[in-house]
């Protein structure tokens, strides 16, 4: 604190501090870049595998466009035929974006769903990641037999207690994913 300030030493001091700090950060970034990429890739892979049937070779990320929205999806291919798709689907929930990974078989049946990220209310909407009844009902859900909307809106989806908005958002995300799979199937036949 004893140093008198003048333009020269202020500029010099700030430049030096910034230089040292950026060098340090650059170094740490170089060391951690690979583990970070690895961790993120593992998380993504785990989330895809959680919603797809066992077996099958996982494809690289592909995209499909439905009504102006682009969906990222992954194909699980066995013997050259796609056996299931994992579609990343984003809707807005109660607290912000709700991102799901939805596994759908080519005939349109839902295999399983999982939440990639959410900002729902703890103890209410956030139960979409823990409520067993809510999560289990998606396994084998066939949109051609049942209606993809919550019971309050005349559909067949059991909503989470006191969290209709989250349940609606979740249902919409699943529905969008099914639409995306329809579009993928359509493209493949052409």
């Amino acid at each position, binding site marked *: 604190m004893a140093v008198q300030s003048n333009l020269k030493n202020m500029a010099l001091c700030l430049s030096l501090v910034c230089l040292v700090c950026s060098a340090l950060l650059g170094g740490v970034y170089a060391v951690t870049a690979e*583990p970070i990429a690895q961790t993120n890739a593992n998380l993504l892979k785990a989330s895809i595998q959680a919603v797809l049937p066992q077996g099958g070779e996982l494809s690289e990320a592909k995209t499909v466009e439905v009504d102006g929205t682009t969906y990222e999806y992954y194909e699980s291919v066995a013997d050259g035929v796609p056996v299931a798709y994992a579609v990343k689907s984003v809707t807005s929930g109660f607290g912000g974006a709700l991102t799901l990974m939805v596994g759908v078989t080519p005939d349109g049946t839902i295999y399983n769903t999982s939440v990639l990220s959410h900002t729902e209310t703890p103890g209410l909407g956030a139960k979409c990641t823990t409520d067993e009844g809510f999560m289990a009902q998606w396994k084998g859900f066939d949109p051609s037999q049942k209606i993809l909307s919550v019971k309050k809106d005349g559909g067949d989806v059991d909503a989470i207690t006191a969290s209709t908005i989250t349940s609606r958002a979740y249902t919409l995300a699943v529905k969008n994913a099914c639409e995306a799979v329809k579009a993928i199937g359509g493209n493949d036949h052409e």
Partner: protein
Amino acid sequence: MTMSKFSIFTKGLVKENPTFVLLLGLCPTLATTTSAVNGLSMGLATLFVLVLSNMAISLVAPYTPDKVHIPVYIVVIATFVTLLQFLMQAYTPGIYATLGLFIPLIVVNCIVLGRAEAFASKNGVVDSALDGIGIGIGFTLALTVLGLVREILGSGSAFGWKLLPGDGMLAFVMAPGAFLCLGYLMVLFNKFLKKE
């Protein structure tokens, strides 16, 4: 300013506890203490930044022109926070996902800049490190206790272990419960402090 090494360390725990006595850094305190584990992680993350930035600042302070000392401190603090962010993303992705936004916000946590300005800039490296550890542990304890109380009342569990069946009182997991708990804990804390 002649304090024993021991009292530099202990004052942050009780007498100058950042949360219950100085009431600093309340934004992350209220937002991240939805459970004991979250509070503990946030406390440890802040402790890490606090100790390193205190040490670095005590080293550069004697050579820093007075007019740019705040920018210099902020750059130093931001560097350590970014470093922490990289490390957490790489090695503890689960905790990073939970705390998310509040890790970069440690940069503007007034406890960190407050200690830099009030202590580290006027003291040596060892004392500054001790001060950072003391204040950091005080902050961590406060956040863990607050998180624990909110978790027990709000979700009926402690450190993720289910104690009571059912959901508990949801309000305590949300923002109003944070204010209520903090208020009552402060009352208790100050009551015991006065007795001493």
